[in-house]
């Protein structure tokens, strides 16, 4: 797995942390084009084995601490042509 980037080390040293996101999906709108998977900067999405109503494979979340986690950048939400996927900031409990 990829090592922690310099940015993250720097942030940690100054007592800050990257934002965390929660990924939401409207499964039946997905057409399985794979754009969200290919362009996620943190590589947290993969093609799943399951089918949706139209027979496409929607994406699935694979978060691997500490590096491969959703940082709420919102790129999947913006690149998705189907209005299917979106992110919200995860509130720390």
């Amino acid at each position, binding site marked *: 797995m990829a090592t922690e980037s310099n940015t993250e080390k720097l942030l940690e040293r100054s007592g800050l942390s990257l934002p965390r996101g929660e990924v*939401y*999906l409207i499964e039946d709108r997905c*057409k*399985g084009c794979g*754009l969200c998977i290919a362009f996620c900067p943190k590589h947290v999405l993969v093609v799943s084995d399951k089918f949706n109503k*139209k027979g496409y494979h929607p994406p699935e979340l694979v978060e691997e601490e500490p590096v491969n986690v959703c940082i709420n950048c919102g790129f999947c939400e*913006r690149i*998705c042509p189907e*209005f*299917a996927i979106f992110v919200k900031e995860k509130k720390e409990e």
Partner: protein
Amino acid sequence: MSIIKADTHPLDRYLRTERLPHVWCPGCGIGTVLGAYLRAMEKIGMDPEKSIMVSGIGCTGRAAGYVRMDSFHTTHGRAIPFAVGLKAARPDLNVTVFSGDGDLFAIGGNHIIHAARRNANITVVAINNFTYGMTGGQLAPTTPETGITTTSPYGNVESPFNLAGLIAVAGASYVARWTSLHVRRLEKSLEKALKKRGFSFVEVLSQCPTAYGRRNRMRDPVDTLKYFQKYAVVKNHVNPLEGVIEPNKPFVVGEFLDAPEEPTFEDKLWELTKAEFLHTSQAERSEWIIEHRRHLEVLSRIISGKGGEE
């Protein structure tokens, strides 16, 4: 943690959700651009009740059917005349033309250059997918040289239009070009274009995996976006005439032109007609409208055979 199932999208209030999923092929960039447009609208707080989307024919032309605001799906190539007329009659509305390269530059090529010349106060979003997607991938005036299409199986021998350059030269107020990969910059640019008074034009290069990409070694939509990532050079305020797109060579994306404000077509029309219009009071005008509405109702009753008597 796994993905959370949802039923509604944050943009749903701008979309006719009952018509989703839309007709565009998996991986088509039009949905991405439509999303960017709606986000830009949301960001600047544009009222959907006061906005109109006009589109022509083609894949991109279908966009007008998916937005929850007044929209026109017009005849082929004539989206611009409809929009200019609309804006001239109702300057209080935000009019956007959302259409494809074939509709705006091939079939309606003359209309767009003249609308730019007149500096009509509309926003034009042109999605350039390098081909006629809906009819099966024929050669379009935007197909890059050597591009393979169904009607140029040995490669295109014509030079394509430089859309941004053409519109900048014709006299537009705002000209930008982005790709469906540069979504954030595109969003910012659309915000500017929507706020701009005068003819604003945003060209968006987009992937067409089904009709164009498949024949040009970009079968997967991701391949076209990787191509954009590799060759797009972001530069602002470059001479628009240098924005030529050649295959497998770097091309410029960015804001080409953001001209100072000038009187628009509607402003000039208003200057001409206001003397006549202003001597009537608001009450007189409303009375006139009510009177005309009554006449129309009577007329429609006569036509439908229900009698003209009240």
